């Protein structure tokens, strides 16, 4: 009888407490319907960007302006693998799922940091990636998790046991294809794109049946002969045109469109080898979630010679934009311009630089840049890593502001070189050196591997920017000494959480940029902070260096 009562109480608990239930373990049962309404269950963090609109804005308010100074360390989970830890965890009913290098997945008690299970994946020696063995996270549907691998497989795991359910080959790693992004689940499908923009790949997005792993549709970011956009390529250049996808897309259920930021053309730096606009590189493409058909596109950087991937997260916001109700897409691009687009049709509404830009003098009426290439050997702003990059931004409906991790005072000298395509080998066509005050001095690079800032702020620094989408003006800025690759989180209590390469983790006032609290965690923050709650207590999690760290209010 007691056993029956216990079983009954487990069944009834969710019904009784409704959306506040957080400590139930077992099958996660995240339905497609729940993913649509992720904002309604702020105790969970159900997708890479915290919901389909990718605002990274939580409605949790327990931690607020007045008590944020009382945040204290709750638990730390150290990674056993060294290297940049770029994964953003998801949280489902008190269980956190995070990836660690190269392609492991961990299920963690989000309250205590204790590990339920660890899935280890052995990456094929054929895998090759330009920029480290990165992985940015998992997706969830029902009681399954989905993760991409460095050797371009897509793996489905049982969320309760961590055992693989299916494993499909998405592309050939020997040709430089990889998967580093967290997939996105829409309805009963898992959507994922391929990386490899430095290897002369032909990028694509593919949708897989979440139950079986069967591929349902595929969209090539580089159009082939006979397809619209193919005319923006010359000769066979499209075959090695790049167009990688390495950051999770956004989704608008109202139009059933998924929005994908597309990476650089191949070869990266020698545009003479690929005359034309090179669609759909450095663009956002709007794909029908059911068919993969292209509905519209907007290209930020045609015929790019600067490696200005447009792999930023598309932030979707319904705004009263300059007096008109607008289904907007907000985009701070690696090329240094901030854009407002109409997400129903891709129409350019507005664009303005948010950092120093000298590769273009501005944007024309359609949003196309007016190029002003610098003479050989002269600095180009922003530098190779961009005015921002893949670091997740945030939009707060409460303040109406867009928050971006930007790099300022940072330039590179670009050079073009011949490039011959050899399958699976680097296909770059030149390079870029950061501008430094003396020859050979350390420049700011991808990631930080030393506790000493040898490059200093003379080669660039990070700034958290609060941009008003109405005007493009900065409401406030928060300057750091080193650059920052941290994502940003905002909450309904007007808090903003972010980090940086120096290993500080901050809570700022989202309205003013005032620093309210910080912790010195030591290691670079190269993921997006998240928030969730378990048993009615709110937590904030961030990864610093090789540690996943969770804070909560002092009890």
């Amino acid at each position, binding site marked *: 009888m007691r056993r029956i009562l216990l079983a009954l109480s487990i069944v009834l608990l969710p019904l009784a407490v409704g959306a506040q239930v957080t400590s139930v373990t077992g099958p996660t049962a995240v339905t497609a319907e729940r993913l649509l309404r992720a904002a309604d269950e702020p105790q969970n963090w159900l997708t890479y960007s915290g919901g389909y609109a990718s605002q990274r804005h939580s409605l949790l308010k327990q931690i607020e302006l007045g008590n944020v100074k009382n945040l204290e360390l709750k638990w730390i989970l150290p990674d056993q693998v*060294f*290297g940049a830890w770029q994964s953003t965890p998801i949280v489902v009913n008190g269980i956190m799922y995070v990836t660690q290098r190269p392609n492991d997945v961990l299920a963690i008690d989000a309250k205590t940091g204790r590990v339920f299970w660890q899935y280890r994946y052995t990456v094929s*020696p054929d895998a*090759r*990636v*330009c*920029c*480290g063995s990165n992985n940015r996270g998992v997706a969830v549907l029902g009681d399954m998790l989905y993760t991409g691998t460095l050797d371009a497989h897509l793996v489905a795991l049982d969320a309760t046991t961590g055992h693989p359910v299916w494993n499909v080959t998405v592309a050939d790693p020997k040709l430089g294809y990889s998967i580093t992004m967290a997939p996105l689940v829409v309805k009963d499908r898992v959507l994922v794109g391929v990386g490899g923009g430095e290897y002369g790949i032909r990028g694509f997005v593919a949708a897989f049946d979440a139950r079986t792993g069967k591929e349902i549709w595929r969209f090539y970011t580089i159009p082939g002969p006979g397809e619209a956009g193919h005319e923006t390529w010359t000769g066979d250049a499209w075959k090695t045109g790049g167009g990688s996808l390495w950051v999770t897309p956004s989704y608008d259920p109202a139009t059933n469109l998924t929005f994908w930021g597309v990476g650089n053309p191949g070869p990266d730096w020698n545009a003479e080898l690929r005359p034309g606009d090179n669609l759909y590189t450095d663009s956002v493409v709007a794909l029908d979630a059911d068919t993969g058909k292209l509905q519209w596109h907007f290209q930020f950087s045609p015929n790019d010679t600067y490696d200005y991937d447009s792999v930023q997260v598309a932030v979707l916001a319904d705004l009263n934009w300059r007096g008109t109700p607008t289904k907007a897409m907000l985009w701070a691009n690696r090329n240094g311009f901030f854009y407002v687009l109409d997400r129903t049709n891709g129409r350019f509404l507005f664009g303005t630089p948010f950092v120093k830009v000298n590769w273009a003098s501005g944007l024309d009426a359609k949003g196309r840049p007016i190029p002003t290439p610098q003479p050989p050997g002269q600095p180009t702003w922003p530098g190779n890593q961009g005015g921002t990059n893949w670091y997740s931004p945030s939009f707060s409906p409460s303040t109406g502001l867009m928050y971006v991790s930007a790099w300022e005072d940072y330039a590179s000298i670009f050079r073009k070189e011949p490039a011959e395509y*050899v399958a699976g*080998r*680097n296909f*770059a066509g030149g*390079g*870029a050196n950061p501008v*430094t*005050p*003396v*020859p*050979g*001095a*350390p*420049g700011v*690079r*991808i*990631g930080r*591997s*030393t*506790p*000493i*800032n*040898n*490059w*200093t*702020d*003379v*080669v660039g620094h990070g700034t958290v920017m609060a941009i008003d989408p109405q005007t493009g003006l900065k409401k406030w800025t928060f*300057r*750091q*000494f*080193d650059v920052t690759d941290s994502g940003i989180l905002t909450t309904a209590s007007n808090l903003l959480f972010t980090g*940086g390469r*120096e290993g*500080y983790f901050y809570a700022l006032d989202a309205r003013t940029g005032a620093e309210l609290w910080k912790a010195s965690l030591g290691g670079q923050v190269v993921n997006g902070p998240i928030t969730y709650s378990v048993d009615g207590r709110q937590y904030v999690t961030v990864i610093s260096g090789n540690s996943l760290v969770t804070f909560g209010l002092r009890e």
Partner: protein
Amino acid sequence: MLFRRSALAAQVAWLTLVFAVPASAQLLNQDHPGEYSREDIATGNRVYGAQCIQCHGRDGDQISGVDLRRGLFRRAATDEDLARVITNGTPAGMPPFRLQPAELTGLVAFIRARFDTTATVRVGDAARGRAIFEGNGMCGTCHRVNGRGPRVAPDLSDIGVTRAPAALERSIRAPSTAMLPINRPVTIVMKDRTTIHGRRLNEDTFTVQVVDDREQLRSIAKRDIELLDVGTKSTMPGYADRLTADEIADTVAYLLTLRE
């Protein structure tokens, strides 16, 4: 004790290397330590672009704990070590590369030249260079080498590993044009009006770390600072007019032997 242990370990490693891979060791013919021919460096550049860039990245810093352009390696210390690692791979997952002898020589040269394919520097006689360093050059007045000398200026005991010949020559001739920004001299006026002069060791948004002119390590919170002046002019005098071209070449040669 620590030093003695690592010296022993290095000796064992070196012996292993001499007996295990004599071929690769013999490949590296240099008149002076640290001096590599432009042809070798250019060859290495090509090999690097084709074979190494995938994992190590364009700047040589994509593997954690390794920064090829800055001379930071997990295992290798000598040129022979580098050649061995390239040839044999590592237990951590680097595959073995079967390169032609000229390719291997070139790759080591390219890495040691800090990926700089343009520099040509004359390297003279190290023994004469040491005499200049310790004598009329008066370098030891500020710099420390192998435990001797003050700590005010950067310790040069491993400068032959961490700097390419071209950078060393530039540092001697016109120090301000070669001084790394992190090494810049700082003057800090505290809110209590005390003043600290020193050399910057590290800095972040909220703090700065220096070694002051009394050789003390100081970590200072910026909120306590009234004025933080970071100078761009090196406190070291330029030697372009103080030493002859031959003497500078000799000094470069000596510095290249400093590979603690």
